[in-house]
C-alpha cells in the first residue's frame, strides 16, 4: 500500500518545507539543498519504510535530521550545531502575567503601529526583526520557527518539539506577545526614523 501512496510528486511536494527546515539549521542554501536532495533520494530508496500518508512530512524530516547531523559531524562542529530539539530551561511560567494585569486587562499593551507594510520594505527593519526573533527563549524560538518559518502545521510542530497541544498554544501565544512587544519597542516606537523616509 505504501508504494502506491509514495510517488515522485508527493515527495517533491514536500521539498519547500524540507528546504526551509534545512536552511534554518544549516544557514547555507547550497548545503540545505544538498541535504534535501539526499533526503528525498534516501526516502525514495527506502519507500518501504514509510508507513502512511499522514506522517509523510514527519518521516521525511526524520531522515533530513540525520542528513543534517551527518553534515555537522563531517564538519566537526557538533558543539555549535543548532537544533530544533532543545528543551526548556527558562520557561518562566509567570511570564504572561507581565503582559496582563490581574484583572485580565493589558499592561500597557499593543499600541497602533504606523504603516507596518512600509517596514517590510526596509532593510533595517529586518535586522530588528531578526534580533527580536533571536531574543525569544530557545525552545519558544524553535516552536515559532517550525510553525511560521518552516511552515509545519501545529500537529507536526508538537511532534517535532515534543509539546502537548496545550503547551503549543501557550508557547505560540507567548512568542507572539514577545515578538510584538520587541518590534514595537525597537521599531515602531521609533517614528522619527520612519518619517524621514516617508
Amino acid at each position, binding site marked *: 500500500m505504501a508504494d502506491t501512496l509514495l510517488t515522485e510528486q508527493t515527495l517533491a511536494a514536500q521539498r519547500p518545507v524540507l*528546504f*526551509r527546515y534545512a*536552511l*534554518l539549521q544549516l*544557514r*547555507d*542554501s*547550497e548545503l*540545505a*539543498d544538498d541535504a534535501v536532495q539526499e533526503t528525498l533520494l534516501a526516502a525514495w530508496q527506502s519507500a518501504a519504510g514509510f508507513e502512511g500518508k499522514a506522517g509523510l512530512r514527519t518521516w521525511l524530516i526524520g531522515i533530513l535530521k540525520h542528513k543534517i547531523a551527518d553534515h555537522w559531524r563531517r564538519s566537526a562542529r557538533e558543539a555549535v550545531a543548532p537544533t530544533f530539539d532543545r528543551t526548556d530551561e527558562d520557561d518562566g511560567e509567570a511570564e*504572561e502575567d507581565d*503582559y*496582563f494585569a490581574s*484583572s*485580565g*486587562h*493589558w499592561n500597557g*499593551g*499593543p*499600541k*497602533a*503601529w504606523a504603516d*507596518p507594510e512600509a517596514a*517590510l520594505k526596509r532593510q533595517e527593519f*529586518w535586522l530588528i*526583526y*531578526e534580533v527580536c*526573533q533571536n531574543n525569544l527563549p530557545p525552545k519558544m524560538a524553535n516552536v*515559532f520557527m517550525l*510553525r*511560521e*518559518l518552516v511552515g509545519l502545521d*501545529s500537529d507536526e510542530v508538537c511532534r517535532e518539539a515534543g509539546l502537548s497541544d496545550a503547551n503549543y*498554544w501557550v508557547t*505560540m*501565544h507567548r512568542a*507572539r*506577545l514577545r*515578538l*510584538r512587544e520587541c*518590534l*514595537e519597542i525597537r521599531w515602531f516606537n521609533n517614528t522619527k526614523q520612519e518619517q524621514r523616509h516617508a
Partner: protein
Amino acid sequence: MRSCRAVSVLVSQGLDKKLSLRERCSVWLHVMMCTRCRNFQTQSQFIRKAARRYTDDLQSRLGKKS
C-alpha cells in the same frame, strides 16, 4: 465578557486553527470595542506575514539558488 487576556489567547489560536462560532463571536465583539486587542490581532497577522517574508529573504541572502 471575556478579558483581554482570554481574547488575546483566542486571537492567537485563531491563527492556527478554526475557532468555534461562539469563540469567533466573542473575539469579534471584543475586538470591535477594544483597541489594544484589535492592535494585537492585526499585529499578530503582521508578524506571520513578516516571518514568511523573512524566510524568503533568508533564502536569497544565504545564497543565490535558482
